[in-house]
């Protein structure tokens, strides 16, 4: 994570073109129904919120990417600029690769890895396997 932050800062300082990288932050709340989450997504490009984008959100399981594949949903613009809200219904808890597709003012495709459980979602950390 630190290294990524370093890259970002280095890139911001060095090349303005590199600042055009899209940054996405995801926050999810468990709804109480099994494996359904209410999520808020923040999109930025070079510290400017991305507004008016059409955002489609899908999810795949890393260990069976093509067979466990969640029906993509369209995100709705949230209250804050650059915020998008959507409801994600997963098949089971655990790690998921959340796939974002942006159309409109910004065309982009991003994959975020998050771990989902009954407390919500956190960026997945890689533990050594047992």
């Amino acid at each position, binding site marked *: 994570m630190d290294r990524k932050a370093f*890259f970002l800062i280095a*890139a911001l300082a*060095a*090349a303005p*073109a*590199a600042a055009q*990288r899209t940054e996405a932050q995801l926050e999810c709340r468990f709804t109480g129904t*099994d*494996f359904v989450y209410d999520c808020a997504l923040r999109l930025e490009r070079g510290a400017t919120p991305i507004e008016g984008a059409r955002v*489609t959100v*899908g999810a*795949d399981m*890393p*260990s*069976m*990417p*093509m*067979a466990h*594949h969640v*029906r*993509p949903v369209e995100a709705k613009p949230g209250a804050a600029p650059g915020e998008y809200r959507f409801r994600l*219904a997963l*098949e089971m808890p655990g790690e998921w*690769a959340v*796939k974002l597709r942006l159309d409109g003012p910004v065309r982009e*495709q991003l*994959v975020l*890895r998050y771990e989902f459980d009954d407390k919500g979602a956190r960026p997945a950390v*890689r533990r050594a396997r047992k």
Partner: protein
Amino acid sequence: MDAYAVSVLTNIGLLGFLALSAYLVLLAGEMSFGQQAFFGIGAYCGGMLTAMAGWPLPLAALAAMAAGAAAAVAVALPTLRLRGLYFAMATLAAAEMARIGFELLHWQVEVAGEPVGPDGTQGFRGIRWVFEAGLAPEGYAVLVWTALAAVTALLAVAERARLGATLRAVGEDPALAAALGLDVHRFKLGVIAASGGLAALGGVLFAHHNTYIEPRNFDVMLGVHGLAYALIGGLGTVFGALVGVALDVGLLEGVRVFQGYRMIVFGGLVALLLVLRPRGLLDEETVRWIGRRFS
């Protein structure tokens, strides 16, 4: 068409390559738990060639197929004299070594100011050739299915020709095939090379569909699913493998009633199906029966 339907169709096509490669090995009389490694090698090779070296996708796909075929031969050369579970375990061990190899692979280059390339367990982001070429999901689904149709047609023609009969003879009774003057070992190696290349082609297309791959994508679950698809679809025809994939990914995933219980339904269905038809839905007898109807 609905975006979800397009993505499901693409997934069926991608898994179709894997199931076909498992089917080829099964026909040759062996069972592989390791086809996911060649799928992964294809994904990594193809992704690195387009994203890091700037190759166009078709060229990268050919190179990745060659790498997948070479890897399959390298695994089979020392292990092909093993039979049954022994061969399956050898392929599994090789595939797990390949997966750990992906975990250890750190090689990134700067592309447009961003590091691009495999970053161990953190995965390999930014395989954007298809995205940047402006190909929409529908277009990509057509591309995947065209490639799959071409491969399937090729295999179907080969099956109707003498090659198919030879393959089944080698798979079902290698001693008899050898007595008839066939070089069984070399023939099997050829089939395994083809299976590795096919899996790799699926892998390249998967990597460019997803734009992101990671070592865990290619663990044993993927390979065993491919094997299961080939077997439940049936060993009588090349179309069986595709029927197997469509049954799981298309039918069961498409029917939302099974949401949350899909694997319970699928697991039970497969086990029951195999009781009734141990060589799958479209087994040899059924295929002959259908063939008589239409000739």
